[in-house]
């Protein structure tokens, strides 16, 4: 019919080679492990940058009154801290773990769409370069809170809002491509015999998370687009004078925002469900109930968004509907917590560092869940809304939840990635410093919040001064503790430590422990056998 004049690219056998040399390895890579590493380092750097902003916030709040930064700069710090931690630290870190671990866990050679994988990663540094440099634009960076409520983001925002909007757009493109890649990999690349109900829970939770991402990131794109046109092109989606409604912004935003919360915690559930059985030397209790609980949480996450908006004057039936649906989420979440506890029950427990962080996760995340349950009750929320109680709640689920699970995952898989055991003494030091300081940091926020201290304000009433000093000291200590982690990871990456066997933890199960340590550059060229 027609002849092919081009010479056949001799790509087919190239993947038996090792990585390319130098910088080209990282910018052109199609290797899931390289891309996972890039994601993880990017997330770690962003975690430190966002953490530095939190330090500025805590330094300002160390005393009542205005002392260190201007209120407008304070607002930029709270805003960009939130944006960076959500979109730059937690989400990319989980995506990095997904990239590293999912292909190895399901017996695939790589992600299904490796080049797109590279594109999804490399958009991120550019997006955050834009976001961070917008802080230096005349009039400052985004200062309307990470939730960018209208009219703060439309009528009262600075000129950098357009940069913010387009930065969010390209971050969204990156997330959607990453999520599509995960979904397709799990659907299509599982080794023969890896049936759905044999998949490790980390794979399951990421599979469901990826669907949440595909469903809600486009809605966020719609929300920022409407902010852009309202601010610059005279539309009035969020302006009552033109027939719109500022509350409509909150509906659209939280339709994205609530599933987003689960995007940041479902993979954490997967990690904990992987680590706890290993160090309990028992199979996970209630595997299938875990899968169904994850799916139920994902479904419920779409019908609870307005619990962020109880004080906006919605009709009573809407308040009740969203209150009951929200409280319903505690059922599948409770299933998970009880399953983890039941897995440990009468297990041969040992307390290696990943397990220490996992147990801390179970206890502290549950506390965050309980304060969430308090916030879910509409009449009670009228008092708690926009106070430090809310800040305490979501930092318990995000820091001692999501971040602790990420640290646990790192301590669990780092020996597999580097081939050496990290410095366990340093790791334990990191654990105890983090555990104590994080509670000094966030626990008193419950008290000042219940007493009425509002969030996102650079000054406060004099009676909150003592607790705020303690909170700030906890904050500085927690920030410094993470430098121990940084030092430890760098040391492990430079292969300083004892070599580890293929199966690093004696109780571990899963395909990732069948391959060599450190994991070879290309894991499976032919599918492994799954029993």
């Amino acid at each position: 019919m027609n002849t092919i004049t081009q010479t056949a690219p001799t790509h087919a056998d190239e993947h038996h080679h090792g990585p390319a040399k130098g910088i080209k390895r990282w910018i052109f890579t199609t290797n899931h492990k390289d891309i996972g590493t890039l994601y993880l380092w990017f997330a770690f750097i962003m975690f430190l940058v966002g953490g530095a902003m939190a330090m500025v916030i805590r330094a300002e709040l160390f005393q009542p009154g205005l002392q260190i930064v201007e209120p407008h700069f304070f607002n930029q710090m709270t805003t960009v801290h939130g944006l960076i931690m959500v979109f730059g630290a937690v989400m990319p870190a989980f995506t990095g773990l997904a990239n590293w671990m999912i292909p190895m866990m399901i017996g695939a050679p790589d992600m299904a769409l490796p080049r797109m994988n590279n594109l999804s990663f490399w958009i991120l540094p550019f997006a955050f370069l834009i976001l961070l440099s917008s802080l230096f634009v005349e009039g400052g960076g985004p200062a309307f809170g990470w939730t960018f409520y209208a009219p703060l983001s439309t009528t009262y925002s600075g000129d950098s809002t357009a940069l913010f909007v387009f930065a969010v757009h390209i971050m969204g493109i990156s997330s959607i491509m990453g999520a599509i890649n995960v979904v397709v990999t799990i659907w299509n690349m599982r080794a023969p015999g890896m049936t759905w109900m044999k998949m490790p829970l980390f794979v399951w939770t990421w599979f469901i998370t990826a669907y949440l991402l595909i469903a809600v990131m486009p809605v966020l794109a719609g929300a920022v687009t409407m902010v852009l046109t309202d601010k610059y092109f005279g539309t009035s989606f969020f302006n009552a004078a033109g027939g719109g409604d500022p509350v409509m912004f909150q509906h659209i935003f939280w339709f994205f925002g609530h599933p987003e919360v689960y995007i940041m915690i479902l993979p954490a559930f997967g990690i904990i469900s992987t680590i706890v059985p290993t160090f309990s030397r028992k199979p996970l209790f209630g595997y299938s109930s875990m899968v169904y609980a994850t799916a139920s949480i994902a479904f419920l996450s779409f019908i609870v968004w307005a619990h962020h908006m109880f004080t906006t004057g919605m009709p009573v039936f809407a308040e009740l509907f969203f209150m009951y649906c929200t409280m319903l989420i505690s059922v599948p979440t409770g299933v998970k917590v009880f399953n983890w506890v039941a897995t440990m029950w009468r297990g041969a427990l040992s307390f290696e560092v990943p397990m220490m962080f996992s147990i801390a996760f179970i206890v502290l995340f549950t506390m965050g869940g309980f304060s969430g349950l308090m916030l879910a009750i509409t009449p009670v929320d009228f008092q708690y809304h926009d106070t430090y109680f809310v800040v305490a709640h979501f930092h318990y689920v995000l820091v001692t939840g999501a971040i602790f699970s990420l640290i646990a995952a790192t301590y669990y898989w780092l020996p597999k990635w580097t081939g050496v055991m990290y410095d366990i003494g340093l790791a334990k030091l990191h654990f105890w410093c983090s555990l104590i300081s994080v509670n000094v940091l966030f626990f008193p926020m419950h008290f000042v919040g219940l007493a009425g201290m509002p969030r996102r304000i650079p000054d406060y009433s004099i009676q909150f001064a003592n607790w705020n000093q303690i909170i700030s000291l906890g904050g500085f200590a927690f920030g410094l503790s993470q430098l121990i982690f940084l030092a430890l990871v760098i040391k492990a990456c430079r292969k300083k430590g004892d070599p580890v066997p293929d199966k690093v933890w004696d109780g571990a199960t899963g395909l990732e422990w069948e391959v060599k340590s450190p994991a070879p550059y290309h894991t499976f060229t032919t599918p492994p056998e799954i029993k």
Partner: protein
Amino acid sequence: MTEQHSQYYVPTQSPWPIVGAFGFFLVAVGAGTLVAQLSQTGEAGWGQMVLMAGLFVLFIMMFGWFKDQIQESRVGLHNQQLGISYRQGMSWFIFSEVMFFGAFFGALFYARMISVPWLGGASNNVMTGEILWPGFEAIWPLTTTPAGNTTQAMGYWGLPLINTLILLTSSVTIHFAHTGLEADKRKQVAWMLGFTILLGSCFLALQVEEYIHAYQDLGLKLDSGVYGNTFFLLTGFHGMHVTLGTLFLIVIFFRILAGHFSADNQFAFQAASWYWHFVDVVWLCLFVFVYIL
């Protein structure tokens, strides 16, 4: 099952993703700066140049990436498993597009069913209307905003109806292009694809005509309150998708002329036709909810 899994295909390193990421960077910086500059001075400054450069880089990226991709596919490097991956990837991409339109449809329904009636005093908002905008009448299409902006509504008779028929016909023609490919009738494929592209272009031309009519005769503008907002953003984003879909089909058309695709190697063709059906369905929803109701 074991046969198709016997050897995995992992593509080699490629420069195009990083080029694409850089293109997105330029587009975001350029668009962000352009919009801010327009609002400050009313004139396009350097942002415009950066935006153009970014779009150019993205074009180069797509050209190069697809070229490599087509070449690899033509020499038979792609196995069946990869074909499935591509198809699944495309379908989930279309699903994400559905959710994007969902956000704007959501805004439309919220405005119609909640915010406009409430401004008129419905539900528990009697005093809102009384105090803020006495005399405001809650009707849809919202031809007079609470602030007093007036406009005329766009009817569905005439251009929109013709456009609906055009797009529906194009969905039929692309379907026959596909059956032609399945039966290896390449003439039919080329003709039917050509018709589809022509119909898509007609649709876009009429859409421009309709916008001119809206701006000049009806006074219906982007800033004419929430009716104009939802009208222009929904039809505008749909029009952008039709434009992309048409470009996609044009590429496929030339590949058909060059002898590409067969009954069992037709991913890009299928993706283009799925995309086309998707913009078609979106239009049907638009026609019902934006124009008729």
